[in-house]
């Protein structure tokens, strides 16, 4: 496709003038006195709006708070959507993203990832009536997912006959499943469990399919080339792990201190590309 390549080169040349370098984020944060974090708003318990206080909180929000604390600045959690998060970061409206962004080499061409702060399996929550036992049982079925999720391509690969419908947010996908529009929804196991618990006893019974699609790391995301800030984040993550604070945070939001009682089987600060 030589034509495409020429076109591409032209666009790249046109845009080269507008490219600006990302550097000195750390100095900016200190000068400003606030660390602006892009977080999610509907992903319990990682980043969600507390119904009572109307304030965003969660595991990732607390991680941001920990970074801000180590810098001696105030943390500001800014709720972003899956489509706005990357532009918000690139245009400097947020300093860092802590928004359940799973690492992939393709994504890492555009942004820099810190080390991992969450390693987790991804799978399906399905309607019990479907009686699926393994992943393969879902092939040819209608499956739901939330937008901005990297899983869509992976599911298409593993279940080529399935049709996938992506909704704005995971709760919408859950409602669609309850209405029988899809028979299962994909996501990280913890999020699926949370949805299941929040839905309670009413509605069609659901179950989690233990057969995982994949396991992924998520970490902080910073602007490409912002190495100084990324290294600093890695340092904070390592300290959180060694001081036991990381484990305590997990317990508070996902483990024994939460309603979910998940077991932590990863270490904060581990390399992300594993």
């Amino acid at each position: 496709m030589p034509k495409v390549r020429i076109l591409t080169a032209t666009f790249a040349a046109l845009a080269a003038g507008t490219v600006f370098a990302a550097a000195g984020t750390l100095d900016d944060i200190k000068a400003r006195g606030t660390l602006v974090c892009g977080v999610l708003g509907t992903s319990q318990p990682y980043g969600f709006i507390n119904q009572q206080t109307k304030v965003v909180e969660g595991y990732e929000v607390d991680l941001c708070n920990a970074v801000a604390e180590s810098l001696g600045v105030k943390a500001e959690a800014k709720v972003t959507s899956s489509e706005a998060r990357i532009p918000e970061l690139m245009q400097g409206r947020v300093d860092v993203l802590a928004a359940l962004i799973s690492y992939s080499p393709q994504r890492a061409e555009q942004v820099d990832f810190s080390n991992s702060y969450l390693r987790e399996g991804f799978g399906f929550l399905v309607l019990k009536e479907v009686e699926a036992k393994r992943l393969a049982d879902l092939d040819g079925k209608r499956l739901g997912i939330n937008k901005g999720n990297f899983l869509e391509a992976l599911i298409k690969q593993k279940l080529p006959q399935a049709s996938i419908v992506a909704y704005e947010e995971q709760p919408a996908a859950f409602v669609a499943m309850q209405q029988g529009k899809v028979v299962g929804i994909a996501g990280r196991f913890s999020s699926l469990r949370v949805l299941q618990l929040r839905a309670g006893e009413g509605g069609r019974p659901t179950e989690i399919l233990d057969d995982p699609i994949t396991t992924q790391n998520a970490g902080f995301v910073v602007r490409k080339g912002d190495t100084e800030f990324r290294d600093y984040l890695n340092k904070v993550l390592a300290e959180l792990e060694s001081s036991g604070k990381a484990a305590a945070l997990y317990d508070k939001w996902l483990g024994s201190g939460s309603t979910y009682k998940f077991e932590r089987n990863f270490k904060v600060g581990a390399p992300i590309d594993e």
Partner: protein
Amino acid sequence: MPKLDFSPIFSADYFPLLASGLKMTLLLFAAGWVFSMLLGMVLTLVRGIPFRPLGWLVAAYVEYQRNIPLLVHLFIWYFGVPQALPHWLNDWINQQNAEAFFAIVAIACYNAAYISEDMRSGLRAIPRVQFEAARAIGFTFVGAMRWIILPQAFRNALPALISQTLIIFKGTSLAAVIGVAELTYQARLIESETFRVFETFSVITIVYLAGTLPLMALGHHVERRGKTRSRA
């Protein structure tokens, strides 16, 4: 900011997604346009019947559609209305492409309200005496409509109808919120996989423009032609 690179978007991984998205956009547009024109015509005719309650019903429908955003209509059709449908019908729709089905219904119902208003104003612009004069020189009711009133009314309404066509085309992008895999949906999927926001959205901007600019040119052309021929 990393260098712009469009090649991943045109690669074998993603280009088919864009192509299938464009196909779905065109389907939504074509079906949405045909059904909204038909429904719009029906609404205009019903409103023309000299029986007040029918006129009120149409007016209520038009206001309901026009005063609620299309985005909300999409949610109502997709998540709300099926709850009221019989179980067997619901199951059948779910087996098909329920997303596209309800998106077309929502787009058609919403735009039909505007189209019926456009057609009605086109009709009302014709002085009633023309109809009376036509009858006086011997035209039947249908004949007067066919040869005197409707050709002029159509010409009056045409610019507004073309602009509404443009709105229908752009409106198809909202269907992404209920999971219809049209162009915008696919762009967001590619964006989330590659994080190449600028590249992805510039490509679909150009695709949308390739659809809307000819429509706009057509609108201008028709408007000019209409002017020179009308002596009203």
